[in-house]
């Protein structure tokens, strides 16, 4: 399927060393990229006149426990002008689950990054307010990790001081 997509071609052309692999399975254009220049890549996707991905629709983590690298950060972008979508994925190692924040590219991605931190323990370097969002500060662990037992109990908390 590669070579059909304008978006993926453009991305490969601009960042030949950063794009690890691409696919368009099920009609969803997808690129796996390295994490080092992720902010630059995302800013390019937003600003390039052929791409114009103005919307950061979604960001989440995935835990592929048992694989190396273990974690994946997944961005879903949408372009209002071009009516196309792309999925950008970055793999992160278990002992270093750190990636640069994209808040400077889309302010709306702020809370998605907090949720990925909350649920998977992925650290977004440079994030202005990286704290738990759905869970409470005293919660231990990151519940969407595959090694977090579904039935695990957490200590009950009282009112804040």
């Amino acid at each position: 399927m590669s070579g059909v997509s304008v978006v993926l071609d453009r991305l490969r052309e601009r960042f030949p060393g950063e794009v690890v692999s691409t696919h368009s399975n099920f009609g969803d254009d997808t690129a796996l990229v390295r994490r080092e220049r992720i902010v630059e890549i995302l800013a390019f996707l937003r600003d390039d006149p052929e791409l114009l991905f103005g919307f950061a629709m979604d960001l989440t983590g995935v835990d592929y426990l048992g694989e190396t690298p273990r974690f994946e950060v997944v961005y879903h972008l949408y372009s209002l002008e071009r009516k196309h979508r792309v999925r950008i994925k970055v793999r992160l190692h278990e002992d270093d689950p750190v990636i640069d924040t994209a808040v400077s590219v889309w302010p709306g991605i702020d809370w998605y990054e907090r949720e990925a931190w909350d649920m998977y323990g992925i650290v977004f370097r440079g994030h202005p307010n990286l704290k738990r969002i759905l869970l409470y500060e005293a919660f231990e662990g990151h519940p969407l990790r595959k090694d977090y037992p579904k039935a695990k109990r957490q200590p009950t908390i009282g009112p804040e001081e």
Partner: protein
Amino acid sequence: MAEPVDIRTSEGTPDLQAEPMRINIGPSHPATHATLRFHATLDGETILDLEPEFGYLHRGFEKESEAATWTQVIPYTDRLNYVSPLMNNVGYAMAVEKLCGIEITERCKYVRVIISELSRIIDHMVCIGTNMVDLGALTNFWYFWKPREEVYKLIEELCGQRLTTAYTRIGGAMADLPEGWTDRLLAVCRGVIPECIADVNALLTKNRIFIERTMGAGPITAKDAVALGFTGPCLRAAGVPLDLRKDEPYLVYDRFDFDIPIGEAGDTCDRYMVRMEEMRQSLRIIEQAVAALPGGPINIDDPRFLLPAKAQVYENIEGLMNHFKFIMEGIQVPAGEVYSATEAANGELGFYIVSRGGGGPYKIKVRPPCFPLFQGIPHLVKGQMIADLIAVLGSVNIIAGELDR
């Protein structure tokens, strides 16, 4: 005439109060509707800063889904946006069908359009009705509750439940439309719904009190709305005509004639106007969809995805085995990842699904439309009055079920 009293000194520093006041709104406060909480920093009645907090309704939807079969996830999706659960059912079923490469029947596509648009109407009615309650206009709420009840009767007839519908199945629906259902649907769509919309319209749209109260409350520019990831009526009220029913037509939306209303200022008044017009457009779609509703089966003919008929289960061993495997192991979905988005009542409802093959999902991420909208609340109300927070919050229509998951 008395001069207005200026509480500030000429230097512009507050005279009566030396420090900004921090107050807590919610999580159980009648005007926050759901379990939402705000830390507000106020100077008098002006909001200097606002920090939203949520998660009180977090049930671990995604964690639960990872331990369920594909079909068992459907009832969980009811609890996302519980004001229009049928739309969540449709969104989820479409995502899994994309992964399986299933093309559902023509009849099913039309039925899904009809139930989605019905849901959109009642969702907007709840939004406008409760928004007006907060602003002290209770009558509109009752005017909208009447048609909403009629729609719930139709939904109950359709799937046996009013709220927790779980109507769709992978590859179809749990049952076809009951006999005479479309006639009763049309009677409601031509009778009580447009009547009540007209009543509320007459009470509000040219009501000077309402207009002055809501115009300019919580505005947003198109540029900011896009940057914050707004979708749905809140984005369209800011003047951006993004609607997936037109931009990425799914099901059979490209066969209908309907318009996408947009606003200009992106304020509470525009959000109200957009929702009112969307309800009328949804009625247009339902009329056209019922007129063109094809016959034939509602489910695809594929034993890999749908339960065998009861007669099969009771009378032969293959049917019984299929039924058992279907329930115990779940339908077998190929490995892969998809993102599927639909235009729900509040905006883009996306499902990102990862499958590694087998009977259940490896990961499901819901992109709830409320999430970026709630994030944008401080942007909407900073510098405005605390009373406007209540007006804005209602007009943005935050549903904690899908916000917290």
